[in-house]
């Protein structure tokens, strides 16, 4: 069994799995249930001046048979009083001294930030998360993403928090910004101990084509909602890696965004996250999902011979580089396993209409037929000379392991775009001929 314990800027937890600030971390009751199920930490639902919510708050998109591939919400921060929230955090910490409880905060003035930061430490919270992210409602009042989208404002407010902070402070970043590293650097400038990202993404999930009101429907209107769930994971991974690789950031990261399984978590950790935060998957299935996350991550680490999460952390960060450093002479091409091909020919039409016309439909006589194939129905054949190795056919192929992309030796020295430009300028290389 690998060591799953984590330490994010001094916030210790038995495993990297935290409940992200949101509906699942609204009460002491939920925090107790989360810890009983095995979660390592809970980031409390954001505490601030209690708000009043609208009734209809969530909407989602389904993809095929999969419900809630993406979820959005227009729910605001906690509707409970700060007194209630801080008291309950104290109760939870008393019962779970070795688990992490993080107070998520969102207030306005310097005085209020001072007050809430001190009260968070007083109630025994292990850390504070500054909510600079919510893209709906609160931003109209000058808080949430309104702060996160303006790095200088964010840095100033982080500074206010740090003036009185005695426990680690995490700045939670909004993805609704052109360059996430600008926000991360602001967090660094302001003195934050760590960053967490991403918060939700501005979204409209669906429009009712009878009423012309998007969901969530609120008395004939709707509003931009914060988007989350499995669908946002690639965006989150991109931003986590960007922050992890930025030499001007160098802050511990708590990764958030569509994490549903141990595999998702492992990917976030490989791209530099110390802990991961989960909300939508818990809203879908309950706290119980953490069992597979812990079990699966453990088995994965064991299978790799990793003794602790430290050996996984950040392992993939440096493999993501600027495009100009990629080898232009590397080549892969598609290879079809005819024993597995079921004859849907989706690869053909995807390549023919959507890519590079590098698949032919040919007489099946020379190939073995897959089960269920209609006799004499043509089979796809890769035109190896034409194949640029784009991967599209292997992505659309519905059969596991049928089309694989294989690396081929071009016999050419590696050559990146940046080197190519240098050599061209020096007259050491001839220009590539354009693709015919």
């Amino acid at each position, binding site marked *: 069994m690998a060591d799953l314990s984590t330490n994010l800027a001094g916030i210790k937890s038995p495993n990297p799995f935290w409940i992200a600030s949101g509906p699942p971390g609204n009460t002491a009751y939920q925090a107790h249930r989360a810890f009983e199920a*095995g979660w390592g930490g809970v980031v409390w639902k954001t505490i601030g001046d209690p708000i009043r919510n609208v009734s209809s708050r969530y909407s989602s998109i389904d993809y095929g*048979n999969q419900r809630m591939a993406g979820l959005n919400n227009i729910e605001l921060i906690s509707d409970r009083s700060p007194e209630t929230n801080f008291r309950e955090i104290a109760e939870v910490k008393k019962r779970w001294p070795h688990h992490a409880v993080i107070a998520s905060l969102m207030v306005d003035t310097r005085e209020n930030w001072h007050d809430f930061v001190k009260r968070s430490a007083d109630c025994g919270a292990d850390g504070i998360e500054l909510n600079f992210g919510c893209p709906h409602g609160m931003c109209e009042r000058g808080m949430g993403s309104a702060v996160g989208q303006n790095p200088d404002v964010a840095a100033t407010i982080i500074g206010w928090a740090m003036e009185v902070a005695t426990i680690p402070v995490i700045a939670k970043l909004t993805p609704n910004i052109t360059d996430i590293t600008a926000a991360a650097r602001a967090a660094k400038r302001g003195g934050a101990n760590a960053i967490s990202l991403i918060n939700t993404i501005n979204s409209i999930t669906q429009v009712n084509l009878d009423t012309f009101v998007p969901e969530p429907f609120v008395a004939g209107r709707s509003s931009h909602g914060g988007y989350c769930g499995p669908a946002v994971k690639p965006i989150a991974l991109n931003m986590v890696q960007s922050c992890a690789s930025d030499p001007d950031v160098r802050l511990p990261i708590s990764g958030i965004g569509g994490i549903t*399984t*141990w595999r998702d978590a492992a990917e976030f950790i490989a791209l530099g996250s110390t802990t991961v935060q989960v909300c939508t998957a818990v809203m879908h299935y309950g706290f119980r999902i953490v*069992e*597979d996350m812990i*079990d699966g991550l453990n*088995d994965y680490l064991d299978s790799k011979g990793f003794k602790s999460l430290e050996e996984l952390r950040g392992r993939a960060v440096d493999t993501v580089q600027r495009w100009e450093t990629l080898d232009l002479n590397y080549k892969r091409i598609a290879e079809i396993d005819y024993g597995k091909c079921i004859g849907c020919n989706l690869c053909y039409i995807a390549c023919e209409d959507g890519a590079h016309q590098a698949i032919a439909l040919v007489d099946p006589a020379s190939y073995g037929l897959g089960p269920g194939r209609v006799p004499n129905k043509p089979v796809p054949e890769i035109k190896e000379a034409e194949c640029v190795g784009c991967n599209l056919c292997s992505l659309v192929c519905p059969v596991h*392991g049928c089309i694989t992309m294989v690396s081929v030796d071009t016999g050419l020295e590696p050559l990146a775009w940046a080197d190519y430009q240098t050599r061209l300028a020096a007259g050491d290389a001839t220009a590539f001929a354009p693709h015919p």
Partner: protein
Amino acid sequence: MHQRPDADLLDSRARLGGAVVKDYATMPLSPRLSADQLATNLADIAPRFTEQQALVESSRCLFCFDAPCITACPTGIDIPAFIKKIMTGNVTGAARTILTANILGASCARVCPTEVLCEGACVMLDRDSDPIKIGRLQRYATDHVYENRIPVLKPAAKKSGKRVAVIGGGPAGMGCAAELANLGHDVVIFERQVNAGGLNTYGIAYYKMKPEVSLAEVDLVKSLGVEFRCGVEVGKDIDRAELDRFDAIFIGVGLGDGQRLRIPGEDLPEVIDALTFIEQIHTDPLHQIPVGARVAVIGCGNTAIDAATQARRLGASEVIVTYRRGEHDMSAYAFEYDLAKKDGATFLFHHAPIEVIAKDGHVAGLRLVQTRRNGSGALEFIEGSEFVEPFDMILKAVGQQKQDNWLQKVFPELTLNRNGTVARDFATGQTNLPNIFTGGDCANGGREVVNAVGEGKKAARGIHKLFSDSQVLGPVQPSRWGASTGPFGSGLDAPIRVPELEAKYEQLSPAAHPGIATSALTSKNQE
């Protein structure tokens, strides 16, 4: 079925060849098919899922809370949890979830009547979909760890110093032994046969499970520190005094030999017990197993079906299953019945055998009589309806004898039920003798493999309670974490079958509880 005169019997013997195979030396029957054909006929009826099939199927599972499949599993496997693990690629974890609850998870994946257990309870059926193929997924996960030799269970770290003798190395004994080992107790299994595993090793239809699966499970139990003493018959090779040196005893001896028909001609060489026939398929090369051309199977339980289908697959040209009662009375499951019909077996209901017809000391046919229920509901023969049907092999599948004779000999002070089973406390498996426990077929009279495993496990917890005075409860299943109370509880504590589930739903239906239905409807309308 037409009545035929006895004279027609004469020719049927002429077709039979003369190859002689060891135990069947007195029979003129011979194998009927080539080794290749037999391998095809007896290949896995439900082959292992490919990775893609497993992913597609597991992603159909809704990961229900309080999933009814758990309640329908007599060992209480956390089914949604293991299926979700398959979906996330944590196949090893899936197998751990299965094997922690049910040490014989690999064989149960193949032999469980899932249609009346977990799969029959699947909520998908209420959404007009096919249930999740739980058995196939369970096989996928357990095969993964067995084939790749991934250890998922560890011997207990702390030993109690207590020793338990388990009599019988079948599903009940292994279920008990594994749980006891897990709780830190030393276990010795005494097994009469050369190999442990009981019916799983010797008595499962060959196209459902190969004996290697069962033997691998024996190795798994061994890996937990359990000692097997095979080829040892309690009461003969070792006596009661030796058993009494153990701190507790678990009796899991299953059932005995097949019931006799008590009709003339029963001792002819080609009249064979169905279980003996199936056992031979497990012990001898398939192409050496003699089978008749026209085979009668007497009885209509699941063993009868296994015997009928296997006789067909071994090359019998005609297999007729005869049953005293009607189609709706048979104890075979509907899907087993369907399988036999698809295999080309025919069924003769409301007929009872009254005599095995012999010619030259060999089976030549069966005298049958039509039956009916009389006014008081009892079966009676219809006078004058007798006829003879030609057969060259008769397979008896009319149930197994209870072990009461053996039990009375070895444990004279043990209380038995009137039907010859061991009387016990259902929750703990404890008999009237405080340190003697029981479970499986010898206690329940003959149920599924999975029932035996569950009862063995419960008895192990009963034994642990005797030793430590502490109640062991199953851990709350991860997929149900957070349940304050489950509506039906775990299948280990209160296994429920699909017909029973249906009965529960009936009780909850609007007609039975108009109050509940009204309020549910009202709240729905308000939405």
